[in-house]
């Protein structure tokens, strides 16, 4: 279908973009890569009265590693991250490797990190990575700038803490995660995951001394699973047995949606397999 009519505005800088959305009111939206917003408009699931195109804000397009932190500008595309040289993602390889799970090449050349986080799909790779690695989401609005911890950013089904006139400027990953991995299962290559699992392990002398487990596709938001993380904090040997137990604990802890499409039992089986697989991949990295 064709998208409904709207007024088109092109922002020249961050302050102008947020002021304009504030002025145009509730029915105005930022337009970044358009890879979520335009399909929703073509389906008539979204009918914004105004779009403020932020794509020309070149200052929001960067990937920078400094002082052990990884900074990703909001307008950096999935493909730019996917093609980043080793040195600019050292210690954060999980972020680069996760990009290949996002849709397909022509989606990744347009879609952006900031757009994914703002869209807030619970299976979106950027949302999972942000929660897994305790990222900080830096925003700007007419009221100033603020830092939203990723753990607090996602409120519910496609709902985030962002105000309508609040622009994501960058996402900052605060410390390297050399033993982290994200894996998932989808019906077709490039589809959104039915279930996605991301883990970050602390490994010392062949033992796992801590870790985090985040799941997509089992709840309205990316979900941390303390019951599975507890198993990773006990200093056990890093082996298949521990990882399988971690997968089982995660599967028992979640209460995935049932109903049309893949049911709760199926999702729980996927959790069991994917958490173990992500652990193996994280250890091997």
């Amino acid at each position, binding site marked *: 279908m*064709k998208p409904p009519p709207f007024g*088109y505005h092109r922002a020249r800088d961050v302050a102008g973009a947020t002021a304009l959305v504030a002025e145009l009111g509730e029915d105005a939206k930022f337009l970044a890569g358009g890879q979520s917003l335009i*399909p929703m408009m073509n389906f008539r699931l979204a009918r914004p009265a105004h779009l403020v195109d932020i794509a020309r804000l070149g200052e929001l397009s960067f990937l920078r590693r400094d002082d052990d932190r990884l900074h990703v500008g909001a307008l950096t595309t999935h493909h730019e991250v996917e093609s980043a040289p080793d040195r600019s993602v050292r210690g954060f390889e999980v972020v680069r490797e996760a990009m290949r799970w996002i*849709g*397909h090449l*022509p989606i990744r050349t347009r879609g952006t990190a900031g757009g994914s986080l703002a869209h807030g799909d619970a299976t979106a790779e950027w949302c999972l990575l942000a929660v897994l690695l305790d990222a900080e989401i830096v925003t700007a609005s007419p009221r100033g700038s603020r830092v939203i911890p990723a753990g607090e950013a996602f409120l519910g089904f496609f709902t985030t803490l962002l105000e309508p006139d609040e622009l994501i400027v960058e996402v900052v990953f605060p410390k390297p995660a050399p033993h982290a991995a994200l894996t998932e299962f989808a019906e077709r290559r490039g589809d959104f995951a039915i279930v996605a699992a991301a883990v970050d392990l602390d490994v010392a002398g062949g033992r796992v001394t801590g870790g985090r487990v985040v799941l997509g596709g089992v709840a309205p938001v990316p979900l941390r699973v303390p019951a599975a993380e507890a198993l990773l904090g006990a200093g056990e040997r890093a082996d298949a047995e521990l990882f399988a137990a971690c997968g089982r604990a995660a599967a028992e802890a979640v209460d995935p949606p049932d109903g049309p499409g893949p049911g709760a039992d199926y999702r729980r089986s996927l959790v069991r397999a994917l958490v173990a697989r992500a652990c193996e991949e994280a250890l091997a990295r």
Partner: protein
Amino acid sequence: MDDAVNDKVLLSLDVNGSEHEVLVEPRRTLADVLRHDLELTGTHIACEHGVCGACTVLVDGAPVRSCLMFAAQAEGRGVRTVESLGRGDELSDLQRAFTEHHALQCGFCTPGFLMLAEGFLAARPDASRAEIREAVSSNLCRCTGYQTIVDAIEDCAARRRAAERTRSA
């Protein structure tokens, strides 16, 4: 609705190396401008939500879904469509590879696959067969079964590499 919503916008678009001016509603997608305003009907449209790839064109050299881009977003960028590949009746090397390998039957998906491959090979001239398969997974073809499309792209890439070696030798 206020005025801005009904206003048409005057856009200047660089398509296949020439400048075009169009006066369109902001909601006009790049795909529709190409087909209806510029009469470049080689770009096909099917799903209009980013899933099939029939509408793939190059924007600044990178493959994109032209159904998921408003024409207004393409202003100031270089757009290339399937019409840019051949010269008159002469097919490009990639198009010839598609014919030689029977990489099309009904042909509906072909412009999308050609532009996907053109953009992909420009960035990854040494792509392995596995990487070509991965890239091609982006587009749908209901006829060929994909193997011949992968064959064609792989063969075209190999010939381009060979030509490059001869040139630099």
